[in-house]
C-alpha cells in the first residue's frame, strides 16, 4: 500500500509536498487534482470518501488527508 505522500507525488511529481503545510494556498493541488486524488485514495485504501468530504480544508496537508482517510474507514 502506498503512503499519502507517494500518491501525491504520483499526481504532482513536480512539488515537494513534505515541505508544505497548505497544499491549496501553495498552489500544489487545484479542484481537479482533488478529484483525481480522491479516486487514487479510494483505490489505494479500499474505501469510498464521501462526496461531503471533498472540500479544500480536508486536503490542506498530509495530516488533514490522513484524518479524512481514518474517518472514511482506512487503516493507516
Amino acid at each position, binding site marked *: 500500500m502506498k503512503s499519502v505522500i507517494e500518491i501525491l507525488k504520483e499526481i504532482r*511529481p*513536480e512539488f515537494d509536498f513534505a515541505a508544505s503545510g497548505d497544499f491549496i494556498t501553495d498552489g500544489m493541488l487545484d479542484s*481537479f487534482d482533488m478529484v483525481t486524488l480522491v479516486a487514487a485514495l479510494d483505490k489505494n485504501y479500499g474505501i469510498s470518501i464521501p*462526496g461531503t468530504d*471533498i472540500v479544500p480544508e480536508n486536503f490542506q496537508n498530509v495530516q488533514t488527508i490522513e484524518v479524512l482517510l481514518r474517518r472514511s474507514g482506512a487503516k493507516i
Partner: protein
Amino acid sequence: MSSIQTPGQVLDAIQKARAGAAAFCTNFFPVESKLQGWIDHRELFAEWHPGAAFFFRTDRDFRHFYFCAADGAALEQGIASSPGLKDGPVTTDLVGSGSTLEHLPPIFERAGFRRYTQLQRLARIGRPETNDGTSDAGFAKKEDGPTALRLIENSFDRHGEQLPSPYEMESAVENHQVLAVKRSGELAGLLFFETQGLASSVRFWAVAEKFRAQRVGSTLMQHYFHIHGTVRRFTLWVNSGNENAITKYRHYGYAPDGLMDHVLAKGMIPQ
C-alpha cells in the same frame, strides 16, 4: 430562480446535494473571491431540485450553468424540470479526463444541449527559463483596462472561453495580473494570468492584429516566465481546434495533461 445573496447560500446548497450522495457529480468549483464578485454584481442565481442544486451566472448575452447533483439521475430529473434551462442561451462546462466524463454529455444532450466546443488543458512543469528581464512588457495600467478587455473579446469566443467581465478586468489590472506591451502608445498585446503559490495559469494571451509578427507575443510570454521564477507548474486552457495557438504553447514547453473541458450549449446553436 432565486438570486444568491451570500456565499453561505451556495455552500449550503452544495452540502445538501452532497449529503448521502452515491455518485456526486458537479461542474462547480467556485473560488471564494470570484463567487463574492458574482454575488456583489447580482450575476448568480440558483434553483433547488430533489438531490440537486443548480446555479446560473449571467455573462453578457447568455448564462453559464453549473450543477451539483447526488447522481446522474438527480441531475437529469432536475434538468428536465428546470425553469432556468427552458429559455435563453446557456452554456455549461463538463471537465474531466478520459472515461470520467462519459456519462454526463448524454444527459445534457437528451435535454437539448449540443456540443459547442472543446478545450484542453496544457501544462508546463519546472522552473522556467527566463531572459534578463529587459523587456518592453510591463503590468497593464488602469487606463488600459477597457482596451485590454476589447482585445480579449475580439480574440476569444465569449461562449466557450469564460471571458472576464469589466469588473473582473479592472480587478485583474489592479492586482497586477495583466501584462501589456504598448507600441506607439497603443496596446499591442496582453497576457492575463492567475498565480497561486507555486502554480500559475495563463487565462488569455492575445496580440492585436496590426501588431502581429512583431515579437509582441513572445515578449509577453518571456516576461511572464521572468516574473514567475519560483513557479513550478504552469497551466492554461486552449481550444482543441486552435492548432496555431497549441503550436505556440508547445514552443514554450506546454503539453496536454489529459484534462478536457467539453463546452455544451443550448438555445444558440441550430438544432
